């Protein structure tokens, strides 16, 4: 994992797949399962499943064909944080956030953020999406 988040003894699950749209159903199934076990309400489970799908689909579009899609779920009291990451197709790949899918993602998640990381010696550039979802309705 390239970001600074460390395991803090809480429940953490990581799924790694080829960066292909055909495997996103597996990742969103994990998201759904974790949210259900964390006592998310039914709307929040549905929203997290859809948000994870959107995030992964956005990243797969920007990923190098040989990249891994790495999706880490940090399960916390009353919320789940998701960090999904791929290796960029190009060193200067920038995620497009001017899309319908991105607006949907912003609606579904409580908080969402794009993280670009430039290539460093031997490591390719990466792009990641971090999103937070709470277990129930938060006041908007």
């Amino acid at each position: 994992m390239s970001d600074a988040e460390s395991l803090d003894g809480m429940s953490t699950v990581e799924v790694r797949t080829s960066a292909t749209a055909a495997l996103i159903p597996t990742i969103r199934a994990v998201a759904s399962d974790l949210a259900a076990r964390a006592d998310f309400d039914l709307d929040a489970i549905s929203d997290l499943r859809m948000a994870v799908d959107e995030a992964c689909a956005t990243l797969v579009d920007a990923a190098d064909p040989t990249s891994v899609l790495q999706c880490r779920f940090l399960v916390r009291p009353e919320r789940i944080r998701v960090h999904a990451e791929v290796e960029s197709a190009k060193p200067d790949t920038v995620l497009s956030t001017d899309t319908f899918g991105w607006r949907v993602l912003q609606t579904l998640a409580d908080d969402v953020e794009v993280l670009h990381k430039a290539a460093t010696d031997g490591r390719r550039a990466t792009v990641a999406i971090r999103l937070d979802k709470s277990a129930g309705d938060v006041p908007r």
Partner: protein
Amino acid sequence: MPDAAAPDPFGVGLPLDTAMSRPRPGTILLEVDGEIDTATAPRLQAGLDEALDAADAEGSRVVVDLTGVTFLASSGLAVLIGGARRLTALGGRLRLVAASRSVTRPLQVTGADALFDTFDDVASALSAEASRPSPATAPPPGVAPPTRGVGR
């Protein structure tokens, strides 16, 4: 390593089936089963295009039955919204049958539900009268055009 003789079983994503029928004169029913995401949305697009082409040619109304849909991503919503716009331009309004949270929640949370007439089951969608502005706000017939498309 990839084996050329055995195609990747996950290569095309999950199954998504569409089936078009004419349950009664003047109505085209498109039944959709499966999960609609970026991998499968093109198959929904193909099915919906076929239904809308037929509706355009025949002057029929269109009902899309999403009862068997267990996941709906923004890519699928975009296809449905495109279909609704096309039908609105033809003077109609797309009818959706959406019973489960897997479908109703994405429609609701994105506000897309305002673009469709949504029903709980196929029988209601087939038998409902064409939607019109609610009586309380509707102008008398002939005075002003409706503000949104009316089902036909």
